[in-house]
């Protein structure tokens, strides 16, 4: 990656923001290499949420009194931060959800149920996370649409040659893809897919859960129609995430959840919906969490996404080089140049859960499993992999500890 960030980030200094790194696990400082699953939280976010609860908490919207006004301002301020973060045209196009998963379900249900039918094709990829796979599989089945996938090559890169054949199967109506694969770290050619999708008259749905925390996102430059991501993978609290959608599409759609705040008027015989974005935010939202999400966006933005990307790139190069030296270790996915800070691998004759267990005893936290990408596992011919993933607070010596731990695993199982 030819990114030269204005300022290089100082991970050692940033770690001071994260209380969890004072923690000892099995007597050792924790080397947290599972940020792709969820990141740790900086003091700034935790402090701000505490402040919010202590001075500005009430239910949002409709409240006339001061605390309710403050809470609403905090909540709506976060919406504007999300808008700016992904360069969306309007904050009315930003919907708070529980996370990327709910955001993708919202699109699948609220757009899919009314716009798909027999003869239509929903296109996903072989390396989708289940959250951008199963909702479409369900809605396709429910509506009678065909469910097609773009295959990958042995390095985990999308085989766009397959598109022509897919287009012959019917009216392509949806193309859904993750911008970054959570298992392989692959950066996918979403712009190209968006162009193709629009040529087919389809919408382009982007799962940015693994992209938004790690690299600059611009929904207008991507040319997509929907984009989803989660707060908890971006230094923010759990329980909140965002969907951005193109206004014209959102306006045409029926709501997904129904209840308080999302209606304009309710009568026994007839109900009409509130304006955007409230139409899609039924019930009391994750108020303090959305506020904290906004603070996390500030935190990450201040460090700079270019700096984060460059930092993770250094770590992934270091990791891939070192792992390649371990006998019997096989790395999945593309070269470091075409991935983010994620490395999945297998160690010959050792089950990934045993790898992770022994690494944990060394204070190294990695994830073992299918990473909610079973179709990809099937394609790779494995049941599970071990995955290390980095973030802005990751250190080169944590990569060293990973490598030392793996050597120990090998010795244990020799």
């Amino acid at each position, binding site marked *: 990656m030819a990114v030269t960030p204005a300022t290089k980030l100082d991970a050692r200094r940033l770690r001071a923001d994260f209380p969890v790194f004072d923690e000892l696990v099995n007597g050792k400082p924790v080397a947290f290499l599972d940020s792709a699953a969820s990141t740790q939280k900086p003091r700034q976010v935790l402090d701000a949420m505490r402040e919010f609860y202590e001075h500005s908490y009430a239910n949002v919207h409709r409240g006339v009194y001061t605390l309710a006004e403050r809470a609403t301002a905090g909540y*709506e301020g976060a919406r504007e931060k999300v808008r700016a973060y992904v360069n969306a045209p309007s904050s009315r196009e930003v919907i708070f959800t529980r996370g990327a998963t709910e955001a993708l379900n919202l699109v699948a249900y609220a757009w899919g149920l009314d716009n798909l039918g027999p003869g239509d094709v929903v296109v996903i990829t072989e390396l989708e996370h289940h959250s951008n796979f199963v909702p479409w599989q369900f809605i396709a089945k429910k509506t009678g649409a065909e469910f097609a996938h773009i295959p990958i090559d042995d390095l985990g890169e999308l085989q766009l040659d397959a598109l022509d054949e897919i287009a012959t199967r019917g009216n392509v109506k949806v193309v859904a893809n993750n911008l970054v694969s959570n298992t392989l770290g692959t950066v996918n050619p979403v712009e190209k897919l968006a162009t193709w999708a629009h040529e087919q008259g389809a919408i382009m749905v982007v799962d940015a859960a693994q992209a938004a925390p790690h690299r600059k996102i611009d929904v207008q430059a991507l040319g997509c129609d929907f984009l989803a991501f989660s707060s908890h993978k971006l230094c923010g609290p759990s329980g909140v995430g965002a969907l951005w959608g193109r206004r014209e599409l959102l306006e045409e759609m029926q709501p997904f959840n129904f209840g308080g705040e999302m209606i304009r008027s309710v009568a026994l015989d007839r109900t009409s919906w509130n304006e955007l974005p409230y139409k899609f935010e039924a019930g009391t939202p994750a108020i303090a969490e959305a506020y904290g999400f906004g603070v996390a966006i500030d935190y990450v933005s201040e460090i700079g996404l270019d700096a984060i990307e460059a930092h993770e790139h250094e770590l992934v190069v270091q990791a891939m080089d070192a792992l390649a030296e371990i006998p019997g270790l096989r790395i999945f996915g593309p070269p470091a140049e075409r991935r983010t800070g994620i490395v999945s691998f297998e160690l010959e004759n050792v089950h990934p859960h045993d790898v992770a267990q022994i690494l944990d005893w060394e204070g190294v936290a990695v994830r073992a499993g299918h990473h909610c990408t079973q179709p990809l596992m099937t394609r790779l011919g494995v049941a599970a992999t071990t995955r290390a993933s980095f973030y802005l607070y990751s250190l080169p010596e944590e990569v060293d500890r990973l490598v030392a731990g793996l050597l120990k695993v090998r010795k244990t199982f020799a």
Partner: protein
Amino acid sequence: MSELDQLYREVILDHYRNPRGHGALEPHDAHAEGQNPLCGDEVSIFVRFADDGETIDEIGFEGRGCAISQAATSMLTELVKGRKAEEVAVLPKDELLEEIGIPLTPIRLKCAILGLGVLKVALHRAKGTPLPEEWRTLENELRLADD
């Protein structure tokens, strides 16, 4: 907050109790209605132009809702009477808000500008000009266009 309180009483309440320009105008040259779903405020505005077809000669409104929405609409009628439609169609909302004079939280702001939004829709409709973007958003929120 007894100054605010004072203001609420004096300025707003006077207009609320004795609305200027109250009542429908028949016939009229421009008309629109709007609602603020939040408070259930409703405002219906009627305009008659002078012979030049441009100057707001007479303006009347009917409505119900909170004191802010009704008082603000009453103040609005005083503010625009005798001015050119063209000018009022682009009147910045701050001009009205200054007139109202009390600090308004975002939620009450919508009450305050309901009447102005309705008036703009009426004028743009009468003149066949498009409502500016800022107000198109409000058009949705405030149901300005509903007849």
